[in-house]
């Protein structure tokens, strides 16, 4: 309830410092970015206004950009495929394991570590066997020499190697979220269903699934947004290479801005990223509102 009548000065003291910092650091840069996206500028020489030329190049003459969009979407698709699996594990965990909480806490460990540590760790695991890489070493020990790869430097597979790390890292996160959702379903509902003859999978079909839809949505939104912004892990593991083979929208933007010093062009990619994020969030919310209306 908004009940306190206070003078404008008090409101200003409570809100303004926060708001100025926030708008100045989040919104002003986005506006600046919309503007610099219309410049031909390398940061040093004079900027030249070129209108929408950068966007034209981006959309029609930059195959690397579209590949990076494709990879970003693939990133999201893989992350989302992981969520039903996590839900399944969460259901099993809730039903059959007594101290499920403890286990989830263990699975959660990779979530709290920095992408720098995890990226470097997996780089060492992916290393060639001659450099002590574990994965290739294990394959050789198993007699599967032909399966060994230079996982992060072969363009055809490097991106999959990164997807895998990301899935590994966030498994515990989504499992925990789903587990919380499953745990919150009261036991009485299952007991009542049992009396009516709904047990096991049937109970899941009619009770668990509909009741976890809201939590499921949260996981999907998080996975989607996390993937659109897929960045640090890629920067640490490959930097977008070899030859752009692992570029996502965000790393493409970063490399264009800071490595190629194309400030205008990089800003155009950044603008695209912001709009893409907003649109996707609206779409996911719309889709889930429909689903929720259907199941309830």
């Amino acid at each position, binding site marked *: 309830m908004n009940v306190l009548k206070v003078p404008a000065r008090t409101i200003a003291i409570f809100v303004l410092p926060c708001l100025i910092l926030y708008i100045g650091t989040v919104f002003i840069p986005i506006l600046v970015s919309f503007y610099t996206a219309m410049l031909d500028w390398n940061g040093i020489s004079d900027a030249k206004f070129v209108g929408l030329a950068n966007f034209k190049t981006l959309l029609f003459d930059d195959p690397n950009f579209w590949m990076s969009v494709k990879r970003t979407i693939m990133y999201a698709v893989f992350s989302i495929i992981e969520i039903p699996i996590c839900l399944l594990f969460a259901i099993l965990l809730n039903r059959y394991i007594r101290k499920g909480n403890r*286990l989830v806490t263990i699975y959660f460990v990779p979530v*709290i570590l920095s992408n720098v540590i995890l990226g470097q760790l997996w780089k060492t695991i992916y290393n060639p066997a001659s450099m002590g890489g574990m994965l290739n070493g294990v394959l050789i020990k198993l007699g599967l020499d032909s399966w060994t790869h230079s996982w992060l430097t072969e363009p055809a597979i490097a991106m999959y190697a990164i997807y895998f790390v990301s899935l590994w890292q966030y498994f515990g996160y989504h499992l925990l979220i789903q587990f919380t959702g499953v745990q919150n379903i009261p036991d009485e509902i299952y007991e009542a269903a049992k009396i009516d003859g709904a047990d096991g999978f049937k109970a899941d079909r009619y009770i668990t699934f509909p009741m976890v839809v809201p939590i499921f949505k949260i996981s999907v939104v998080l996975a989607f947004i996390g993937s659109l912004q897929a960045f640090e892990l890629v920067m640490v593991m490959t930097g977008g290479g070899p030859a752009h083979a692992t570029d996502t929208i965000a790393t493409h933007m970063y490399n264009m801005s800071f490595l190629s010093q194309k400030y205008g062009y990089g800003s155009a990619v950044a603008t695209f990223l912001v709009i893409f994020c907003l649109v996707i969030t609206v779409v996911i919310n719309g889709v889930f509102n429909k689903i929720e209306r259907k199941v309830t």
Partner: protein
Amino acid sequence: MNNVKKWFVYLLFAILIVTQLYPLLWLVMYSLKTNEEILGGSFFALPNIPQWHNYADAYTSGSYLKYLGNSVIVTAISLFAVIIFSSMTAYAITRFKWKYGQYVMLLFLLGMMIPLQATLLPLMIIFKNLDLLNTRWSIIIPYTAFALPIAVFILSGFMRSIPTDIEESAFMDGASVYRIFRSIILPISVPPVMTVCILTFINIWNEYIVAATFISSEELKTLPFGVYTFVSQYSVNYGNIGAFLVMGALPVIIFYFILSERITKGMVAGAVKG
């Protein structure tokens, strides 16, 4: 339930422990081996003689304590700023009678969808003009600003649920809003503030790319950036790299070991409310 099924489920979850933890354990063993052992392909073996000196070497050739100290300073200031700013704003949004409260809230909701990376270049240009590049402020400011939306959201959600009677009577008795905020609202809000602290701490403590973009001086590098620098500089001494990575992970691991229940709860609460 029959036993076979039960053991199958147990096995499944045991395998998951291995997949989620073994890579980290492997790193610890790696950090205690000699270069010969690592290159020789003894992947599962324990180190022959644990090479504790890898840690000593990593410690002396890197600037671990300096990075750690920088991370502590940056994280502490940012956390403090986030808590103060977000709690005051959340209070104003949920309690004050004014026209624009809803719009301010909307602004924070909108900000949740804006990716931090998209602001890196314009922020760099702005910071360059303000002479802030390569100072602690150049990372504290974005860390704080980008933590605000979720913080305001969580805190205002909580404050809305506090009954207004206490404040109204305190107000009648002549207590100022500042007094009410400090002596009534903040103490009640400790649980959601803890949630905000945990979320913000994990994000800021682990952040790498903002630091790598705005900081260049060795003196100011935070731990993730420092770890990255160390690894790229000493790329031939595998044991030392492993040791430095373990040391880099250690603070968060210790923190998690002590507060795991709270941290997982806080992060889920953050996710669910966001």
